[in-house]
């Protein structure tokens, strides 16, 4: 992502003077076109994947119940499964353009409606987890970078544990200690902010682990640079050197990882939500995938793609803020 960015800027608008698109307009337009293309590709890939996956839709809808030609005919008619694949694909895309995500086979409701109710809890959970990850990582990295050996060893070990232990296990351990034994936090209840603490920790700790390692290494490298020496020689305290100078350098690789975190957080939400009995996209997705509830799976794929596209756009902005070299380019 880092390397691709500067390269994207020059070509457009350089040819004919009359066709020159102002830079401030060109980037957003190109970005929008790319975003739509990515979304279309995601929708199509998901559609194709589910089409190729084993199992006939009618079979799935019939399930283990009665299987007679009349029942099959009713199902085919109800869901319009008698039309050719190409027609169904195009009508699917058409409906998508109108914002119609279709109807869930399993839950018998509009997919848009189902997801609308689940986005909020998942957003709250992932944002809280991201906050936990970032705050912990920055705090720990700043506190331990370039310091004595023992605190660093302990923190490194803790980070390694957070990264390598499955989220499910972290969640169970947190529940046993802080909910079942100490009784500080409830297991579930999304309306209650207290119920968000343990799931956010379970989801955020692995992020904190990775981010912490990356940040500390970056900080340590930056602190050895000549500019750090200069800053120190100007009489700045070590903390000020870290906060004002080194951290900015260390942040770049960390921001690059943010795209990856999005995946970790969304994927981890599936496990975390089921474990803590929280509502959210993860649980709906799991139910939909096991039940081969195509319309719901497709909608989740498109939604995830949209989130990725947005995040990567925001990241580009963030680079500009952190790295002045990109601003002047």
């Amino acid at each position: 992502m880092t390397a691709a960015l500067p390269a994207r800027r020059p070509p457009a608008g350089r040819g004919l003077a009359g066709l020159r698109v102002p830079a401030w307009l060109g980037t957003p337009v190109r970005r929008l076109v790319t975003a739509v293309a990515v979304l279309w590709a995601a929708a199509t890939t998901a559609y194709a994947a589910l089409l190729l996956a084993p199992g006939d839709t009618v079979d799935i809808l019939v399930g283990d119940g009665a299987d007679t030609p009349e029942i099959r005919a009713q199902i085919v008619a109800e869901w319009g499964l008698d039309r050719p694949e190409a027609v169904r694909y195009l009508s699917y895309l058409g409906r998508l353009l109108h914002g119609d995500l279709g109807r869930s086979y399993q839950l018998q409701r509009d997919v848009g409606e189902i997801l609308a109710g689940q986005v909020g809890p998942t957003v709250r959970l992932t944002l809280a987890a991201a906050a936990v990850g970032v705050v912990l990582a920055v705090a720990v990295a700043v506190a331990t970078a370039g310091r004595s050996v023992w605190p660093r060893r302990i923190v490194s070990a803790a980070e390694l544990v957070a990264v390598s232990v499955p989220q499910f296990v972290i969640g169970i351990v947190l529940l046993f200690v802080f909910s079942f034994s100490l009784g500080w936090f409830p297991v579930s209840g999304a309306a209650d902010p207290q119920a968000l603490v343990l799931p956010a920790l379970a989801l955020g700790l692995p992020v904190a682990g990775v981010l912490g390692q990356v940040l500390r290494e970056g900080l340590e490298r930056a602190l050895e640079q000549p500019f750090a020496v200069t800053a120190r020689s100007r009489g700045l305290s070590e903390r000020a050197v870290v906060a004002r100078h080194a951290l900015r350098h260390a942040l770049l690789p960390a921001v690059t990882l943010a795209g990856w975190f999005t995946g970790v957080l969304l994927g981890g939400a599936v496990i975390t939500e089921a474990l803590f009995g929280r509502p959210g996209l993860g649980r709906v997705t799991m139910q939909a995938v096991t039940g081969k509830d195509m319309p719901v799976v497709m909608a989740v794929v498109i939604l995830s793609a949209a989130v990725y596209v947005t995040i990567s756009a925001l990241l580009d902005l963030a680079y500009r803020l952190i790295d002045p070299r990109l601003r002047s380019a």
Partner: protein
Amino acid sequence: MKAIRGALPFILVAALAACGSQTPAAQTGGTALTWAVETEPITFNPHQWGQNKARLLVFNQFDALVARGEDGSFVPWLARSWKVSDDGRTYTLELRDDVTFQDGTKFDAAAVKANFDKLREPGYNPTVAAIQLHAFDKAEVVSPTTLKITLKEPDGLFLDFLSSPLAGQVSPKSLKEAEDLKAGGPDVVGTGPFVLDRYVRGQEVHYTRNPRYNWPPQGSAHQGPAYLSEVTYRFLPQAAVRIGALTSGQVQVVEGVPATDIQTVKSDPSLSFQSALNSGTAFSYYFNTSHPPFDDRRVRQAFREAVDLDTVLASVYQGTAKRAWSVVADTSPFYDPSLEKTYGGDAAKANALLDAAGWTQRDAEGYRTKDGKRLTVRSVAAAPYVRDRRDILAQAIQARLKQTAGIDFQVRIVDQGTAQKAYEDDAFEVFENSRGDSDAGAALNLILPKGGAINRTHFADAALDTWLAGATASSDTAERKALYAKVQHKVVADEAIVFPIYVPSDQIAASRNVQGLGFDPVSGTPRGVYDVRIAA
């Protein structure tokens, strides 16, 4: 600066402690109950019901026309009485006249007719229209309290249908106006003792007491409104989390206690524990007889003889599973106990049978072979149906089969679509299944007759089909029992097309002060909470 750094962990812990000062749900009032359940229902509309694990919710909100007593007999509920004509084709229901739906609509014969008509509407619930109501011809309103139902042919399972969640009576107003009728929820109302007023998908469903309720089924422990003012069911799919929530007092009742936790719960003096065997069919392995090696009865018998099932069940379920001897569950009135201890667990016999069937060679890994082909049998199971540690059970059976008889038992747990495809392509030898139908006959009709919806043994036998059809048409329990005994003898003893393994059960663990919990006498699943109260 050192001081700040050293203080950081303490600040974090203090911050954590500050956010958490919750009061356990138990303290929020004497008559509110929180119950953690394993399964979130796909629908709250009783007409669309299909998950046994969700059965406990249905009768909080809805009442059926007929109920079942502790002894399994049919007793009055919304129908005060009923008469069946001599030819078994006309059912005349006399309905209660003091019942209102939760939306204020009067319950009467026209409402019941509207429910039947809806169930038969194309596309509403094709399965019920084709199976449970296959014999249904018409319903006629004779008077506001009298409904006459005419069947095309006698149906011994019709009263069972009238007592099932599928016959839960939905307000005609909801049937017409509900926005998401098939999904159910707060706007699809019944006549039951509780009103569903809040549903948070993925988290919980909340009911409040219906203050006007005064029409429980005959034989209920009390009359009038329910004791509890409100009840919340939390959806916690992880067993360890449910148990932890119970022991820490965050919920007062849980269902679905895994074998590994039963001892912990039993030894806790503040908790009560109860379990009940489910109705329907036992969890069984059905052998696919359409191709080798299970087209040979000796191989099917050898499979059963090679497994010392008592030992396997004891190690997998720590003595909490009840071994099954017939395809029909022990709790059914049709269960044939004469099959007990008539087969299984004889390694020498297993090997003799396989030798006789020509599987005499062994390959390098110790598996039996015949004409250079290994004795391999495959089981394909859809993940959503794999519960009760059935995957671990399969591994234990796999190990026994290899060790005692050289049978290569391969187990694959896959998604629903893949399983469906394997069944269609006939690419499996073992089909695992249990069904929780309240009348075992309904389950057998799907599994055993030629062309049955899930007849995956591909076994066909004219006599068997005649017995099944005869038992379905009859409503004479003694006659049905005799016919189903023949059926069980045929498929378990004579033909060995099925390997019954264990009788599934349901468990309830609760705080000791919660009283009146129990199981539905027919299905063996947890009951609703109408009779439940919290002692001071």
